[in-house]
């Protein structure tokens, strides 16, 4: 995944991902805005209605995770922000949800392995992401915070 800055012009002749970057305060009332932005990005890409909704919910869960982490272990320097970077490519949408909240990753990837009766709401969010998109990668950021990378293919992979 190219890590280019949104303002950087696409190199001529190279791959041409349209990059849409949204930054919101890490607070519950802004998650709806992120979902609307993602609706705008995904609905122009040839995804089915259900696939668009899957992406919207997965991104919502990634944002909710970030907010929950802050609520449970805030670092005292304000709520921080969440950056949602969408890379639009032919046949593929990759969305990176990055929180700059000074708290390390909490979500683990293997929620799906446990019986549903034992998982809590936050693990439910991780489970949903795993089911709703084709690839999920979660990694702590060196400067604090967490990066969640969600990938969905237009031809259901």
């Amino acid at each position, binding site marked *: 995944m190219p890590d280019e800055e949104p303002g950087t012009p696409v190199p001529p002749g190279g791959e041409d991902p349209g990059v849409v970057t949204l930054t919101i305060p890490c607070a519950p009332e802004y998650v*709806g805005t992120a979902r609307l932005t993602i609706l705008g990005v995904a609905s122009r890409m040839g995804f089915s209605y259900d696939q668009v909704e899957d992406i919207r*919910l997965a991104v919502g869960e990634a*944002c909710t995770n970030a907010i929950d982490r802050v609520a449970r272990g805030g670092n005292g320097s304000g709520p921080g922000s969440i950056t949602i970077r969408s890379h639009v490519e032919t046949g593929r949408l990759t969305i990176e949800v990055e929180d700059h909240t000074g708290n390390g990753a909490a979500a683990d990837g293997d929620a799906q392995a446990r019986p549903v009766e034992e998982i*809590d709401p936050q693990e*439910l*969010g991780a489970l*949903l992401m795993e*089911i*709703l998109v084709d690839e999920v990668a979660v990694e702590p950021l060196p400067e604090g915070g967490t990066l969640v990378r969600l990938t969905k293919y237009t031809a259901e992979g």
Partner: protein
Amino acid sequence: METAMNLKVSPRAVDGTQVLDLEGEVDVYTAPLLRQAIVDLVEGGATHVLINLERVDYLDSTGLGILIGGVKRLKEQGGALRLVGPSARITRIFEITGLNKIFDVYATERDALAAGGR
């Protein structure tokens, strides 16, 4: 284009059964409203609660967690939480998470009321 990005929770009673009509989106922002409404009903002595999801167009893990909590709490009181009219989309979410095994779901309010209980 709908501008509603909110949740409306309207309580009412039908033949002694407490009903919560939901309208809008249940997410990390709005879910506390739903949690409070359920808590209020339980503290008011309700044992059988019916939640109408017909006009809910978004439900995330926060909302699911609260519904699960409601199911548990009402079961502890010898009662039940019933869900009415989820969209195809939300039914799908129940299925992929396996929560359809935990939730008591009815297509219409009439069906849910006919299932008995106070």
